[in-house]
């Protein structure tokens, strides 16, 4: 199967420090490919390179077989990559609806944004799509609430809604469960949500919650000091001695 997103020989150096060390990684259509690794392994840098937020020193990234190396961040989003941030970066002063409309209008289907007359939150094409996403995320009751008044978990959901709004083929999710805690309102709900998204997008998932990773991911890559030291399904990762040594250490791996 041809991969949706293909990363080959990707390198990022900060001075003498090799933060991304010749990374090869594929995301196939409909799969969740998790990237795990200790803090400072270069996971967020990798996502930022794929998005074009951080320029790469070497290597090539292609989406659906076409190189996107020359594209800027906004162009890559329009080409079909969406991301969520580890540190919630919704627009705090905007309402839920305004945030999602902002994200929806950025999609390639909606042309340029030089429209000066119709209020953005009453533009039918934009609002319908936004409301659909808000409903999907279970935020309908908070539609007209400023993002700053949302709970942390709701902000994380809004973050995902905005990543989906551009109708991406590939989703890059940077610790969607970070800081959510366990239980119905926390990470369990997000796991359930990701399970529903699975199959519809190619997802690159960065996550520290091992229960979530092992239950969701089709494949797992382990990043250690910028290098992919192992790639395979959950069992292969659990069995790998390098992974045990490098990353998991003494930590108990969930069965």
């Amino acid at each position, binding site marked *: 199967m041809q991969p949706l997103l293909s990363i080959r020989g990707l390198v990022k150096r900060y001075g003498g420090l090799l933060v991304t060390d010749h990374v090869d990684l594929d995301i196939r259509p409909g799969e969740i490919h998790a990237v795990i690794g200790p803090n400072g392994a270069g996971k967020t840098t990798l996502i930022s390179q794929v998005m074009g937020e951080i320029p790469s020193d070497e290597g090539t990234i292609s989406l659906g077989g076409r190189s996107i190396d020359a594209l800027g961040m906004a162009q890559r989003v329009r080409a079909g990559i969406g991301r969520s941030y580890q540190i919630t970066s919704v627009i705090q002063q905007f309402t839920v609806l305004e945030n999602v409309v902002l994200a929806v*209008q*950025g999609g390639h289907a909606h042309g340029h944004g*030089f429209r000066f007359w119709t209020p953005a939150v009453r533009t039918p094409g934009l609002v319908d799509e936004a409301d659909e996403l808000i409903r999907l995320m279970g935020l309908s009751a908070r539609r007209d609430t400023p993002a700053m008044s949302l709970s942390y978990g709701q902000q994380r959901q809004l973050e995902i809604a905005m990543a989906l709004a551009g109708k991406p083929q590939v989703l890059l999710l940077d610790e969607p469960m970070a800081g959510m805690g366990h239980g119905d309102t926390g990470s369990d709900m997000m796991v359930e949500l990701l399970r529903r998204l699975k199959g519809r997008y190619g997802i690159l998932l960065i996550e520290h919650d091992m229960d979530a990773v092992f239950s969701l991911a089709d494949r797992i890559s382990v990043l250690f000091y910028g290098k992919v030291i192992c790639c395979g399904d959950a069992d292969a990762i659990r069995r790998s001695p390098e992974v045990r040594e490098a990353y998991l250490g003494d930590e108990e791996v969930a069965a």
Partner: protein
Amino acid sequence: MDTSIAQAGPGRRFPAASWPVCLTVALFLLLALVPVYSALADSPYVLLQFSRILVFALAAVGLNLALGYGGLVSFGHAMYIGIGAYCVAVASHYGADSGVLHLVLVLAVTALVAAPVGLVALRTRGIAFIMITLALAQMFYFLAVGLKQYGGDEGLPIRQLSHFGALTGNHAALYLALLACLGGSLLLLRRVIASRFGLILRASSMDARRVRAVGTTPLGYQLLAYVLSAELCGLAGFFLANLTAFASPAYMAWTASGELIIMVLLGGAGTLVGPVVGAAGFLLLEDVLKGLTDHWMIVMGPVIVLIVLFLRNGLWGMMSHSREDH
């Protein structure tokens, strides 16, 4: 459009939205009465002073689009007031006194200057943006000072004001035209701010990376906002030239740019009507204090600092939020 208002229920949304609107309408009615008062009290100075207020209100409303909504702290917007004034003065100097021609010239020249200046300045952020707009404005200031054939640092008197038939040189007509322009700009901005363009502009001022992450490049939106904001300042310059029958380099001094920023902050940056209140407050306070003491700046400075520090969203924020919040 209508359905969303109906769904929200008139009881909930109507008062919150209408209080600032009522306040604005009342403000404009009062301003419209100024020529009447001036005629009855036989005090042309009042009309002159309020015309000045409207000129700077218009410029401040313009700056607010870039500064308040776009987050672009331009320290050079007085340059566009000066450019507007010089367009009138220079055209008139060569005997072209058609008012329509003057207006077209002002708007065209302002756009021709603002587009490249904005493009250069927008390559930077934060303090660098402030400094580069200041530097470019100073360039134009010294250009005006250096143009000896147009009066140099003494400025250029305007013998023939912009010709608009029988209304030419009529102060009350000028005042009402100014008021209409100001009102029109506010109505227009109200739409633009809420539009898709306005949404992107406001989002870019808060988190430009987030805007790029949804697939939109902020630069074009910020540049257009900068040019539109310059146009309103150019228009203010057009009126100022006709009000004073004079174009002076002092119109575009860096202190004038600073005063514009203060007016916006005083009234409330990022509020629609705030800059109007800010301009009026600033100029009236200056007027009163000048009458009391030669050292009026010693009082004016701290007053402004205190207002900006302690009133969230400035004077207008205080006036328009007094009812529904808390």
